[in-house]
């Protein structure tokens, strides 16, 4: 019983500010560090999107601060097209990597995976600390790209060569800025792979007695499969980054074909393939977007079950769906390349595999609805975010059904329809997963409650706001509005669409402004929030049975023993409407 039996990795309790809060081995501190990194990054990313939307709605506007910070990119405070493209590139990069790949997985996962499985820390606490600081370094290098000569790269978060490989000659920001971008991503790959190893080993080897795989909360399943995806996908991106750096700096021609003439200059490369980059990038890129959404799905299931006071409908099916999505995510990357010049036969194959991956996603939605059926729904703020997640996941997911058909994609590829699709599913649904997790777990992490009233206000403005922003983008796509256009004045067909862009921008500014309410709620609660009980939601999983906040080794030396599944709510005959996973089995006294 206890320590002698279970794997045990916790370090001694630290003393001193540096050991406790800066270079900490404690998964809880590291989880909060990742969360804070993501919080910083999301506000940076949102600022960039403000600039993007400003340019689209009111091009030529003077923004004096911009002129001061970026005299090259925005002379006299007016954004140049290359500046717009660099804002767009960095917005995508920062949001995808430093927000969606960190907060849901490394943030909440680090904090709660060990506790939810009954472990005292992650399998490798030192490696965990290293993973965070390497991620931090990656962010520093990325932000540095803004401040070098030429500024940040303009090739999109996808960095397709030859544009990204030819250097300054192909455009501003494609010099040092692009190189720093690639370097940052390479560092991020390593950090992610290290983190993934921790999650995988922890889940396999550190579970408490009685915690079989099929008793894991769905959050743990999501974190586990996400980690496997990360481990296998980031290695490929790292390889691609190495090859791109060599093309840029060592004269190789992996991606650069021969006979190129850029601005009347003959480029001395030959034989490379731009499509090779796309294959490598998207082989990573597709699992990456599932890395972004799976933890949110886990959190949604978890939160829904708690506030429906009902077991999750179809737990087994949900587990298989997570595994199915994870596995299939490696088979579909070509659907990003239908128009790329790749073989049309290959396109058909990818279209079919993509259709296949849509099925388990639909199953999850049915099961969420099934959980709501016959429930006793409690409308806490966390629950609202989870419900919003379901709504947005459906909306974002079904637009994928247009894009996975090559024939239909002929029209919609590289239009705002695609922008709508991925924002709905990543930029909104996944974010709702993060918000839901925040409102749900804040009491356990910080020992205080977030204000429910203001939280609901934050939710409603955001929920209506995101639909108002991204629904119209589908219509822009129907009208054939191409993406990544810095100015809308060159084409007649874009003229009637400029008004829509204005409305989108206005909704965006409103919604972004509402996120400051969240900041206020968050920081106010940190210092002045109502003190939280150990289990304010009356939830069943192990994190709600430990003190708030948990002690350094989570369980004070006494590892828990698990007696039942994770979502035993409203069990007939039970004294309360929830039975914790670790509550001892007591034989029923004869009634």
């Amino acid at each position, binding site marked *: 019983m206890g320590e002698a039996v279970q794997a045990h990795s916790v370090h001694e309790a630290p003393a001193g500010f540096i050991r406790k809060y800066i270079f900490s081995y404690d998964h809880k501190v590291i989880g909060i560090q990742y969360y804070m990194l993501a919080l910083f990054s999301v506000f940076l990313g949102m600022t960039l999107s403000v600039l993007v939307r400003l340019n689209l709605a009111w091009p030529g506007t003077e923004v004096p601060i911009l002129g001061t910070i970026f005299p090259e990119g925005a002379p006299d405070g007016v954004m140049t097209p290359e500046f717009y493209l660099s804002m767009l590139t960095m917005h995508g990069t920062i949001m995808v990597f430093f927000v969606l790949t960190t907060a849901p997985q490394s943030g909440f996962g680090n904090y709660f995976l060990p506790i939810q499985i009954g472990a005292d820390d992650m399998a490798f606490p030192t490696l965990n600390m290293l993973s965070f600081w390497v991620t931090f370094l990656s962010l520093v290098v990325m932000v540095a790209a803004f401040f070098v000569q030429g500024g940040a790269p303009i090739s999109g978060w996808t960095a397709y060569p030859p544009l990204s490989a030819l250097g300054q000659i192909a455009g501003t920001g494609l010099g040092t800025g692009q190189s720093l971008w690639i370097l940052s991503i390479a560092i991020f790959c390593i950090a992610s792979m290290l983190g993934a190893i921790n999650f995988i080993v922890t889940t396999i080897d550190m579970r408490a007695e009685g915690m079989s795989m099929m008793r894991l909360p769905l959050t743990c399943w999501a974190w586990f499969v996400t980690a496997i995806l990360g481990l296998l996908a980031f290695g490929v991106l790292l390889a691609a980054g190495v090859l791109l750096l060599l093309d840029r700096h060592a004269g190789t021609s992996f991606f650069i074909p021969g006979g190129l003439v850029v601005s009347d200059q*003959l480029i001395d490369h030959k034989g490379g393939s731009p499509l090779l980059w796309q294959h490598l990038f998207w082989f990573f890129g597709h699992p990456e977007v599932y890395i972004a959404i799976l933890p949110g799905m886990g959190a949604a299931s978890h939160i829904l079950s708690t506030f429906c006071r009902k077991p999750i409908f179809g737990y087994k099916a949900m587990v298989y769906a997570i595994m199915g999505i994870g596995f299939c995510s490696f088979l579909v990357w070509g659907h990003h390349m239908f128009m790329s010049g790749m073989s*049309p036969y290959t396109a058909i194959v990818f279209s*079919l595999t993509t259709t296949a991956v849509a099925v388990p996603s639909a199953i999850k939605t049915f099961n969420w609805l099934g959980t709501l059926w016959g429930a006793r729904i409690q409308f806490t703020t966390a629950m609202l975010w989870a419900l919003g997640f379901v709504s947005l996941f459906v909306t974002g997911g079904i637009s994928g059904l247009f894009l996975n058909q090559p024939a239909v994609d002929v029209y919609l*590829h590289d239009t705002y329809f695609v922008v709508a699709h991925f924002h709905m599913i990543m930029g909104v649904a996944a974010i709702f997963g993060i918000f839901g997790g925040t409102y749900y777990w804040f009491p356990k992490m910080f020992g205080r409650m977030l204000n429910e009233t203001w939280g609901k206000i934050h939710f409603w403005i955001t929920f209506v706001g995101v639909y108002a922003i991204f629904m119209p983008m589908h219509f822009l796509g129907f009208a054939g509005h*191409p993406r990544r256009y810095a100015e809308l004045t060159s084409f007649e067909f874009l003229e009637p669409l400029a008004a*829509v862009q204005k409305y989108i921008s206005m909704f965006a500014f409103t919604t972004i402004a509402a996120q400051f309410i969240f900041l206020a709620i968050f920081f106010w609660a940190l210092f002045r929030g109502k003190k939280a009980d150990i289990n304010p939601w009356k939830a069943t999983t192990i994190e709600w049975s430990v003190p708030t906040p948990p002690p350094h080794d989570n369980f004070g030396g006494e590892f828990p023993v698990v007696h039942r599944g994770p979502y035993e709510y409203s069990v007939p005959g039970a004294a309360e409407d929830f039975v914790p996973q670790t509550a001892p089995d007591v034989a029923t006294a004869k009634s």
Partner: protein
Amino acid sequence: MFFAIIIWLITLVSVVLTVGKYWWLPELASEHGVALDRQFMLTLVVTGIIFVLAQVALGYLVMRYKDRPGRTADYSHGNDKLEVVWTLATAVVFFALVIPGQSIWASLHLNPPTEDVVRIEVTGQQFSWNIRYPGADGKFGQLKPELTDDSGGNALGLDPDDPASSDDLVVPVMAVPVNRNIELMLRSKDVTHAFFVRELRIKQDAVPGMTIPLRFKPSKIGHYEVACAELCGLGHHKMRSTIQILSDEDYASWLKDQAEE
């Protein structure tokens, strides 16, 4: 209650704005576009139904099963049979939607060009399009990248020593004859671009180092804009050209006029 209302309102507004076609695909001008538009509409209807059903169901469930005093939740872990049923149903609907549409793709890309195809070469560069016609000899002249000279009027690097080059016509705008099979040979001088004409329902990346065919059959006379649909640098948004669909006679005289200039 409030949640249901908001969700239903969002659903309603979305459906109205879609059905009203306020921002829509422009009028069709190509043959394959008919089937493409039909598949598009089918997809829209199917996804629309799923969208409405899901959001309505979500709102309904949230309203109906709100916690009230005296209520107990249904202690159910699920229903395996139901899982199988809705998994199969979903798979059937999704594949039934996607598989037939592949024939449209096949007709665009897997059929060889016909004998009488009109072949035109399109080369993208930062930030303009160069359209090349083979001229009376029907042959495209040799290109040599080292001879490229934008300001000197030889954007493609046409080799003057190749006899086939002498009647080649390189222009910034395009014209094609209506009701004829057209094959555009897409190329690029520098980075990846993409050739996109909304009304013709055609789009294809122009990748440097490759020559990629794009086939279509224009079915209506008209004048349309050509846009670049792959981020190619700071002038991506102004890489505009136009394509005219002309009758056979008008096309012939257009070619003559262009050659004279």
